[in-house]
């Protein structure tokens, strides 16, 4: 595991070094691309937070909610999993105004990507919660715990460990999907690169830098999720070397 992190870091450093050393025009592109990267990061963070915030209640509603609430959750999950992120993006951006709802492009981007990934996340949460052994629920009944307390204190903390790695994958999927937002007038990293490329034709330099940027962001996500996983597993893993 440490080896893989090391390898990724090495590649990042190597590519970064290569860019600095061999491209004199590096300085010329950096500020613009950095600007684009910031937008990409902003949408990624916003989308990831929203995804988690909708996934957990959607999963719990689907599993334990009263019937109408369950239907609502199922509807949300199926609609957002069953249609493409691009269509969702367009729908929120071009169709909602017809109903008098006009949102900032950045808001639309975070909403669409967050809700899209949240639908997949809901299934991740549901899988992890149902994977907690039945005996754990039975113990909470035998201790006379109300269901919400049992869920909060006993079931979810155990499910958390199992759901972190798949969430890491979803976050990286979300990062990659941010490249779609240029289609609703947002200048993110990918779009900025295209713009610069069309002006300067320094394709190699520009897209190598862009590659490194994406890789750096996803490496941060991966490392963060691994740290989170270790933290969540600290109790469970103790004594099991």
């Amino acid at each position: 595991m440490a080896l893989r992190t090391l390898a990724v870091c090495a590649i990042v450093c190597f590519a970064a070094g290569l860019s600095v050393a061999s491209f004199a025009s590096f300085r010329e592109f950096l500020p613009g691309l950095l600007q684009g990267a910031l937008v990409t990061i902003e949408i990624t963070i916003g989308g990831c937070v929203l995804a988690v915030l909708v996934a957990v209640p959607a999963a719990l509603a689907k599993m334990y909610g009263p019937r109408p609430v369950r239907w609502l959750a199922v509807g949300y999950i199926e609609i957002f999993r069953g249609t493409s992120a691009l269509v969702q993006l367009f729908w929120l951006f071009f169709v909602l105004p017809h109903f008098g709802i006009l949102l900032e492009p950045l808001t639309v981007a975070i909403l669409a990507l967050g809700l899209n990934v949240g639908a997949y996340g809901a299934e991740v949460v549901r899988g992890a919660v149902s994977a907690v052994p039945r005996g754990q629920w039975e113990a909470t009944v035998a201790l006379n715990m109300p269901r919400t307390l049992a869920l909060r204190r006993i079931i979810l903390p155990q499910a958390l460990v199992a759901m972190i790695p798949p969430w890491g994958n979803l976050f990286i999927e979300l990062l990659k999907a941010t490249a779609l937002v240029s289609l609703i007038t947002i200048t993110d990293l990918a779009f900025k690169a295209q713009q610069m490329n069309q002006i300067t034709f320094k394709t190699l330099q520009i897209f190598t830098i862009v590659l490194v940027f994406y890789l750096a962001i996803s490496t941060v996500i991966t490392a963060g999720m691994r740290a989170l996983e270790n933290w969540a597993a600290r109790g469970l893993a103790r004594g099991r070397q």
Partner: protein
Amino acid sequence: MSDKANGPMVRFEKVTKRYGALTVLDALDLEIAPNEKVSIIGPSGSGKTTVLRMLMTLERINDGVIHVDGEPLTHMQKGGGLVPADERHLRRVRGKIGMVFQHFNLFPHMSALKNCIEAPVNVLDLPRKEAEARAAELLDMVGLGDKKGHFPSQLSGGQQQRVAIARALAMRPKVMLFDEVTSALDPELVGEVLNVIRRLGTEHNLTMLMVTHQMGFAREFSDRVCFFYGGRICEQGTPDELFGSPRQERTKQFLSAVLEAG
């Protein structure tokens, strides 16, 4: 009130449990007196676990009523009749019952002490200090005073089961249910768990209902032994009656088969 004081602690009244077409318990009648220790024995599939699970409200019953400590558990009084219990009623009456499981079911993300204070603090609303003091006392009693900070994964099966017993006792139940609590243990760990149950029997005012395959323990420890067969009590009596001079052919067969197996 006098009924509550002198009546049975647990009473099954014509309780029937079905899974689909399979009738697992057939109009079961069973009364257990306060402080009585009752063992349930019988072949696999005879419904022993189901009896305990219904009493713990882990299974719904299809027919009949279960009473605990003078009031219905599975039902509640409403408009002069009995209607199926709602969650609030269940939670109130269920609080009198504790259960220990075959596979311990400890909370793996909590230390032994935390396992024992989680419900007292959050369900009984005990102050944390008080809950901790009481949990420490109980862990001492089960011989794990020095393992309070250990997680379940750091404990042997016998130790985990003793934590589970302490955890159940921390809720101050009147009735304790034990479902084959030594079956998942290595043979050399069985004794330490049975010793704890022995101590509970003499030092605490508990009504105890246990499903067991430990015939020696059932004979020595129980006030009464019930032999289940096909979802019914085929024969019951004092340990000496049941083990010494069983009357039913099925009881004799079962006992000789079990004794032969060791």
